[in-house]
């Protein structure tokens, strides 16, 4: 069971970079933990902190206006590379509830949906517009992400819709556990296994 997401209004952090990979989101030295927690402090570690451990003032998440942000607006192909779900755990633990991007890497997108982090795909020009509005506001910018209505708006004239597959949307809206959901059709799994055995020598159906 994850925290259900129906709608959320929050402060925006903008990271106008494309192809941000999961190695950047959570570097490998933090992957040795055997828990799902403890990753928030390591989010974007190499960008957030200088080699001496101090905060890097140039990094977008360290800007004073980005403190307390819960919605991340980013460039295309966000979350590419490694399958590490630790990246999503880190983003959630840091406080993000939704990520808006022109596109996401496939595995990362699936991982978000498992953890109550809403990945919303907007058009590239809409993301560009959000970056403009965020900058024009001096970083003091808020958005509402409404998953129920599949809508993003800032209350200042920006309003758009986004698509989400009904299965994923329902999972996020209700905070469902995917295993529990699959076990509702467990008899199908058993039937499939029996069918293959009955085919003899695991006869395949292609």
């Amino acid at each position, binding site marked *: 069971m994850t925290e259900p997401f129906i709608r959320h209004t929050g402060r925006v952090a903008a990271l106008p970079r*494309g192809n941000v990979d999961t*190695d950047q989101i959570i570097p490998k030295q933090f*992957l040795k933990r055997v828990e799902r927690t403890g990753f928030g402090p390591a989010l974007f570690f190499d960008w957030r902190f200088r080699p001496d451990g101090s905060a890097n003032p140039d990094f977008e998440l360290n800007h004073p206006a980005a403190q307390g942000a819960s919605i991340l607006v980013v460039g*295309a192909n966000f979350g590419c*590379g490694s399958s590490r779900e630790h990246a999503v755990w880190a983003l959630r633990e840091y406080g993000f509830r939704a990520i808006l991007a022109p596109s996401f*890497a496939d595995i990362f997108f699936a991982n978000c949906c498992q953890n109550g982090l809403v990945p919303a795909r907007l058009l590239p020009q809409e993301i560009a517009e959000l970056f403009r509005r965020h900058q024009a506001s001096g970083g003091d910018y808020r958005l509402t992400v409404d998953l129920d209505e599949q809508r993003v708006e800032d209350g200042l004239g920006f309003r758009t819709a986004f698509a989400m*597959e009904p299965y994923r949307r329902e999972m996020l809206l209700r905070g469902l556990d*995917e*295993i529990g959901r699959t076990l509702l059709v467990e008899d199908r799994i058993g039937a499939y296994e029996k069918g293959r055995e009955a085919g003899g020598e695991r006869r395949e159906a*292609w």
Partner: protein
Amino acid sequence: MSARTLFQKVWDAHVVHQFPEGPALLYVDLHLVHEVTSPQAFAGLRQAGRRVRRPELTVATVDHNVPTGDRAVPIADPIAARQLAALATNARDFGVELFDLGSPEQGIVHVIGPELGLTRPGMVIVCGDSHTATHGAFGALALGIGTSEVEHVLATQCLVWSKPRTMEARVTGTLAPGVTAKDLILALIGWIGTAGATGHVIEYTGDPIRALSMEARMTVCNMSIEAGARAGMIAPDETTFAYLAGRPRAPGGAAWARAVEQWRELPTDPGASYDVRVDFDASAVAPQVTWGTSPGMVVAVTGCVPSPADFATDAEQHAVARALEYMGLTPGTPLAGLPIDRVFLGSCTNARIEDLRAAARVVRGGGRRVAAGVRALVVPGSQQVKAQAEREGLDRVFREAGFEWRNAGCSMCLGMNADVLESGERCASTSNRNFEGRQGRGGRTHLMSPPMAAAAALAGRLVDVREWELAPL
């Protein structure tokens, strides 16, 4: 039934249930597990009081965080040791076979699966690792999954997946001498982009693909994820069957003949269509070297570092400027001649026996030595690859030339163990990702083929391996 692609046939054969809201419940034939992405999944099972549904279809090994030095020495990193111990406990408690550090079959999960004959045509294979795409070389549908999905597969032996689109990467022409499968896939990624195949499964087709060995096909499929595709596939053929025949976990006797008969039905039917097709001429491919911080930032070794001004959009120009700053490179600099500090021969992309042979061929003969000031590592993909290389005397070739000869693991591909770059060090690497900090914070990675990396080690700089005299085969 209408004409179907290889992907469609494997998909159809594994649909357990179609959710009306979109995705399918897909049956998994082989679930590979390693120490880094599994502990939270097993913990979830324990918490919910669930079992592993099909432990006999689940196989575990240790690869990501393991030291590659002396195996008799206790692991220095207590957190890594705890993660390895967790996998040992989980494997024992849940009845899953584990190839641990002491096992002669231990190795990188994507090397040992094929090597043991666990990976077979027509299977659905998953692993909590994005390079699971490797196994698609056998005509399997193999994809990387997250840890929640690992837990789901452990509990149900199924994966929830929305049917992806298909892309045919139709390769024509012939690979030139000195040009490898690694160069082919790097050039292809440079062409279609690192998100070019997002949402798709790629099938690689064409004569140059058919001409590749199984190990070379694995190199191609391995990097499908670097083009954005969760899976890449190659239709099984005689090369595939010859590779699998006699492998310890492959079917034997009458079962083998029946299996081959079934596998022959897998290739895409004439007239079947893909959602997208890209055409690619292999003849034009030269040895490739990445210059930036994304695998798509790649040129021929005969080329130069590009300028941000060469790119069309603001976003690309910013990304290139940022990458050049990180890499410490100036536009217009020829790639050949660039001095390097480190060499890494390894990873699930390029650490199989053929890779080591190809690299050794560059090193062998003429008293060649690793250049002064360069540190070069050879990390075999598995303990079996290591043993085979040692039987062939390749370890001596490398050692005598000044390379370090290690035990199997992921090692410096991702630097989770002690094998990392120092900040500012420049590395010629046979791995798959040149992301910022991937091989160590501030480290600068140039991806290339094993012969190119071996030649770079000897020259102390990037060189065009085609200009090197090779030892006879």
